[in-house]
């Protein structure tokens, strides 16, 4: 049976049989880039967001204040430029610019990692800034009032809460990255979308190839969003807590469970 004689489903199965391995490889590349770059983007975003929300120490001199101001200005420019231009152009700009101006030939992987991380970082910086501002001022005042330093306050009290608050956006970014790595096909990165174009180009079965690839993309993003939701509930901790009691005569187990709804123990 030739491709021309097959129906829609037979063609999809044919594509899976013949190109299953390539699709799998493409999907793996997409996922590696998306996950690594979302992570690196978060690191960049936290660094930038922390600097953007920091105030000069009251005793710091004019030089330190000026330095902080300059750094903030540069970071704002970075955020605005990378949020304000298409990632596909950024990819071309960095990839071809590096080879033309500096004579550096970025490999497929390093180019992909740099571009997507730096782009995600720009978005995450704003998200982290919002996340830090969303933690009420009382939290850091409570920490400062018992003698914790600014650094300890941020690391132990503010950032963990900011991270929890922005988890939905981090998940959102991951999903966007899974889909948006497709723009890397412009610099020849062999990810899932690139694989789709190869298949459709070889077989002239655009509809079926698109269907198969879309399903794969959806499985990837849906699985990720479920996993992230699970992580969020894990971060919240249990909704009930154990009442500790040393009165072993009353409670042989030593612990009883406090139920918020009924307001008592059971």
């Amino acid at each position, binding site marked *: 049976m030739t491709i021309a004689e097959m129906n829609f489903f037979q063609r999809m199965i044919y594509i899976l049989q013949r190109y299953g391995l390539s699709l799998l490889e493409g999907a793996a590349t997409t996922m590696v880039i998306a996950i690594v770059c979302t992570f690196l983007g978060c690191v960049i975003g936290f660094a930038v967001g922390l600097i953007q929300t920091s105030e000069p120490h009251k005793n710091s001199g004019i030089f330190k204040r000026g330095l902080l101001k300059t750094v903030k200005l540069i970071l704002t420019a970075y955020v605005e430029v990378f949020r304000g231009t298409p990632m596909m152009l950024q990819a071309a700009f960095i990839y071809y610019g590096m080879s033309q101006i500096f004579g550096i030939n970025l490999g497929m992987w390093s180019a992909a990692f740099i571009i997507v991380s730096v782009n995600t970082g720009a978005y995450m910086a704003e998200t982290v800034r919002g996340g830090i501002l969303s933690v009420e001022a*009382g939290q850091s005042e*409570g920490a*400062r009032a*018992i*003698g*914790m330093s600014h650094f300890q306050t941020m690391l132990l*009290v503010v950032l963990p809460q900011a991270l*929890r608050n922005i988890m939905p956006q981090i998940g959102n970014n991951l999903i966007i990255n899974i889909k948006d790595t497709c723009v890397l096909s412009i610099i020849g990165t062999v990810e899932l979308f690139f694989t789709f174009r190869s298949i459709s180009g070889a077989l002239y079965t655009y509809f079926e190839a698109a269907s198969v690839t879309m399903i794969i993309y959806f499985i990837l993003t849906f699985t990720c969003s479920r996993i992230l939701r699970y992580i969020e509930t894990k971060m919240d901790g249990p909704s009930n*807590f154990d009442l500790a009691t040393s009165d072993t005569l009353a409670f042989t187990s030593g612990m009883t469970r406090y139920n918020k709804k009924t307001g008592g123990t059971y």
Partner: protein
Amino acid sequence: MDEILKVEHLVKTFGTNEVLKDIDFSVFKGDVISIIGSSGSGKSTLLRCINMLEDATGGRILYHGNNILDGSIDEDQYRTKVGMVFQSFNLFNNYTVLGNCMLGQTHVLKRSKEDARKRAMEYLEKVGMEQYINAKPRQLSGGQKQRVAIARALAMDPEVLLFDEPTSALDPEMVGEVLDVMKNLAESGMTMLVVTHEMAFARDISKRVVFMADGRIEEEGSPDQIFNHPQKERTKEFLSRFTKTLKD
């Protein structure tokens, strides 16, 4: 008597708004001082200046004779000695009750985990919250939160505790449990500086009462002097609003 804090000519301005004008007073070891006064008179600002959450504009705050405002002392170490309890509790939402009481001990005082835990338990027992060590702040009532906040402050072994209207954000039925804890603290000899609208507490528990008006200390004296024989018109006027509640 051992003078822990001495405030001299303290001035604080926000922009052009002079909130504290030439404040002078001292805190001695074992003092329980109530600061009363109408809303906006600068009570919170005074406490926040003492805890260095606000930068004073002028004057001096001496801690055992050393001025804390000239940058010569370690701000964070000073704060461990002068604890603060807030109206809005400010418990760390990302830690359990026990974690809240241990965090400062392990990270600021560098106590070992076991040591910190032992002391945290000791103070949680003191405020009657030892059963709730595994709860997160959002799972507690307001009164319970405030009791944990007091235990957290106590666990740092402060020399002075500052309270900024610790019961104002509480439902009426929870005010008592927090005041009881504070009463026990006062009786155990803790040095306390309490901004409060609870006139019964100010009258019955404190050794000295400070009445503030418009950023100044208008009148200062023993509870008997302030409540039964006020000298200044403003003090009388302010207290007349509370006489009804005090008679109960």
